[in-house]
């Protein structure tokens, strides 16, 4: 059994598969040195494996994350509000994915670009509703806002570049996250 803070850290690794100490520090808003120490501890407990390119989850670590989702969110899984929120999110998700593809195919067509950012803006607003029951979701809203600002500042790499904290990356991590909260398997499309 792991505590909330440990889950916060392990969950980043769970969603990213491979996370650098810097990723972990910025996503959990903690100093790099502290994260480094915590990871060293988790490494000793064999929950994570540290490699030069980043931190990975061990089998035990993965089980503990899945177990935490199960324990912490079991009561929410039958919550009508959350379930219907998720159904609306699915619509938004379909639009987002289609727009990202269209954005790539049209080499960043201005209208598609704008619609894409609006959809992200909608999700950020909708996330507000979940924060009371899942406080850590505020982190996604903050990440979206930061990357939106970068895109608006002209750095389009923050739309879909898989190496950055791009809108597409954040969106997918959030999707995986909420699916894990709901205990649902991921749709394959």
């Amino acid at each position, binding site marked *: 059994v792991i505590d909330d803070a440990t889950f916060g850290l392990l969950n980043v690794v*769970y*969603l*990213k*598969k*491979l996370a*650098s100490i*810097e990723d972990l520090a910025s996503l959990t808003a903690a100093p790099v040195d502290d994260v480094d120490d915590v990871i060293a501890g988790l490494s000793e407990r064999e929950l994570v494996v540290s490699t030069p*390119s980043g931190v*990975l989850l061990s089998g035990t670590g993965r089980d503990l994350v899945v177990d935490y989702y199960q324990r912490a969110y079991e009561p929410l899984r039958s919550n009508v509000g959350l379930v219907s929120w998720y159904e609306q999110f699915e619509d938004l998700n379909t639009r987002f*994915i*289609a727009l*990202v*593809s269209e954005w*790539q195919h*049209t*080499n960043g*067509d*201005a*209208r598609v670009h*704008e619609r894409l*950012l609006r959809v992200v*803006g909608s999700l950020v607003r909708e996330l507000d509703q979940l924060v009371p029951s899942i406080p850590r979701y505020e982190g996604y809203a903050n990440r979206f806002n930061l990357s*939106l*600002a970068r*895109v*608006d*500042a*002209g750095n389009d790499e923050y739309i*879909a*570049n*898989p*190496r950055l904290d*791009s809108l*597409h*990356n954040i969106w*997918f*991590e959030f999707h*995986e996250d909420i699916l894990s909260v709901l205990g649902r398997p*991921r749709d*394959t*499309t």
Partner: protein
Amino acid sequence: VSATADLDVAATRCVFDLADVDPDDASSFGGKGAGLARMLAAGLTVPPAFVISTNACAIYRDNGNTVPGWLAADIDAAMAGLERATGRGFGTGEGVPLLVSVRSGAPVSMPGMMDTILNVGLDACAATRLADATGNVGFAIDTWLRFWRSFAGTVLDIDPDAFRAVDRLRDDVEKRGTLESFLALERAIATGIEAEGRHAPLRPHDQLVLAIGTVLRSWDNSRARIYREHHRLPEDMGTAVTVQVMVFGNLDARSGSGVAFSRDPNTGAAALFGEYLAGRQGEEIVSGISTPTALSAPDALPSGVHERLASSVRRLERIYRDAVDVEFTVESGKLYLLQVRPAKRTAQAAVRVAKDLVDETVITPREAVRRVSVDQVRNLLRPTFDPVALARATVVTSGIGSSPGHASGHCVLDADRAAVAAHRGEPTILMRPTTSPQDIRGMLAADGIVTARGGALSHAAVVSRAMDKPCVVGCEDLDIDLDGATFSVAGSTYPEGTLLSMDGGSGTVYLGQLPQINASRHDVPVDAIVAIADALSGCEVWSSTPVGENRSSASPAGIGPISLTDLLISTDLIDELIAAIDDLSQDTRNPAPRRRLSELAAGACRSLLADNTGCPIAIRLPNLGSPRAQRMISTWVELAPQLLLPGGIRAFYGPLLQGIAAAASDVGYGCVGVVIGGVTDARQLATIDASLDKLGRVSLALGASLHSLAALAAGPEMAARGFALWVDIRELIRTFHGFPSALSMATDVFDSSVDSGTLTNNPLKVLDTNLVAALQQLLTAAGRTAAAGIGIDGGVGMEPAMTRQLYAIGFRTFSVAGNQLATVRLLLGQVAAETVDE
């Protein structure tokens, strides 16, 4: 507000008929308004419109975010003008109602601003009239609902889902088509909006004023403000609003709508291209409800319209200085241009259009090289599978080609294992049932990605496109057994590790490794664009790899510096070279290894020279002191130390030079350049040069490859003595920074250090300022004439930022790998074009 104050501001004019709009004043009328005015001024027919100028923004804000009375009156007067121009009534009258679009138009397009509201002007009565006039009740309903949806979403800020209930009424209204049924629909709309806690304005006039206010207010949305702050754009710039008449393509048999391209967007061929839907509105083309007619078909358009359209797009090309696409509507035989923009196009079309526009003197060469991106040229010249091998290849599976490109490698079914294999340097194809962010590490490392499920919009497709990596998704007959580490297709089972080849364009996966060949695109004038770029940059670009046949105007200025070691590796004779060096090291007087060295050099060069007759060639001799030699020669530590210095033992370079000279003489080559690496003193070169005299043949011209600051310092003297100079930029960077050669190719390692903030710049991408100064010094001290001949040996790759720096320093001779010739030359042309601008 007092009457006097009202009079004061009334002196400010904000509303302009399109005919009074200055096409060159985008800061007052926005890009869209100015663009429409330009079309009108050029004699093209656009639907009547008026523009509310950007100064209205501040007036609106200062008036407590409402339109002041005097401005509302001006807008009403302008609307009356549109009514007169069209003979239609806005919210009143008989027959076809006047509908308008409301569009924002900031001088600079800005994020988060309201874009467009279409079809403003309908209430239940007007919608009934529209249904009667067009004889199409369904069209009237859809036009109206489309208005409400966008009005509710953008002006009232309501979820468009509020109209789900209304949608259920739609069929009933269409069946009846009476005023009563339209009124019932209007009540349902109002109820839906009020249920969301908002007031629904039903009068077209109120809707228009609200829509205009929303555009003006959207100037102050938070994203736009952040954007302006970041780009240091003035806060008081404001946005204009364009109000334009909507025309109907479904009015009668001589009406219709379409899209036209001034040139074929696929090939770039200079011919009118596009589609037309007779008797329909433009949205129906996009929605794909009806099948349009190609503009090239005879009588596709009502009489006279084709000629008018063709001459319109030609005029627009001159105005926009580019190929354009236009949306147009024909209303009762009259052509209206609705929207014009630079046309979307394929890479192939981009190249062709840029070349043709230069030939037609529409654009300058400087503009042309910037109309084609380096990525587009790279994609066009991307290697493809050898067609001979392809014809014999076995197709394993196929799906949707979702990111183009070709790759071969061992298939790996797990993202982590794929990452490990790829990092070992093994060509790898990641094959997954589907991908998720958890597979990202393997996806980044693999050469290509294949998934069994998912469509063109799947995670794998999006990520692979962002990484420009071949990807095939949705191979439905593919069955992956992750536990058994096998995959099966149609009854055949293959183990993980099976060698596969994939084409991310066609979506086909083949068995085995298919050889790739460089694409020769005779259908695309890449050579012409490269020639334009060369003329702009004044650069000579050599190929560091043999090019062979297929020479064209875009062929390299020379071949080299090409390493003798690589020539021997490619003919499998490298072990013999190493053995000869070993033997020589034991006894420098032994004639056998010397003879062998001479034969090896002659053999390797003979075929290179024969294949490239008439082209300047530079051959680089092995540098036994280099990190590469240290890695390749297992007995390196036992070699005689003098061998590690360039020219340190004459018995080494002597026979090699003899062999090269013999090859040149055999082939009848006038002059072959020989480049010595690692020299730091002009005397080293002079000594080797003197030994050439003993050969009795002067068919070799000596030069140096500069690897260090010491070499740069000695460069001017070498140049003064007539030696050719090549700066080996990658090795120079390495010795300057002092990192080990294992990091010479590790761009990503440096990138991640830059990302984490431990390095300011990636040294392989951006030259350090001290290094820039040293290179500058080399050119200055060498003098103008000699400097022109000093080349940059870019090795396997030249980063764009560094290429810019080197061009700015004054280098005009470069050498890059053959597959980068076209892209680097285009880039140099683009850099030159920018420089001229500044």
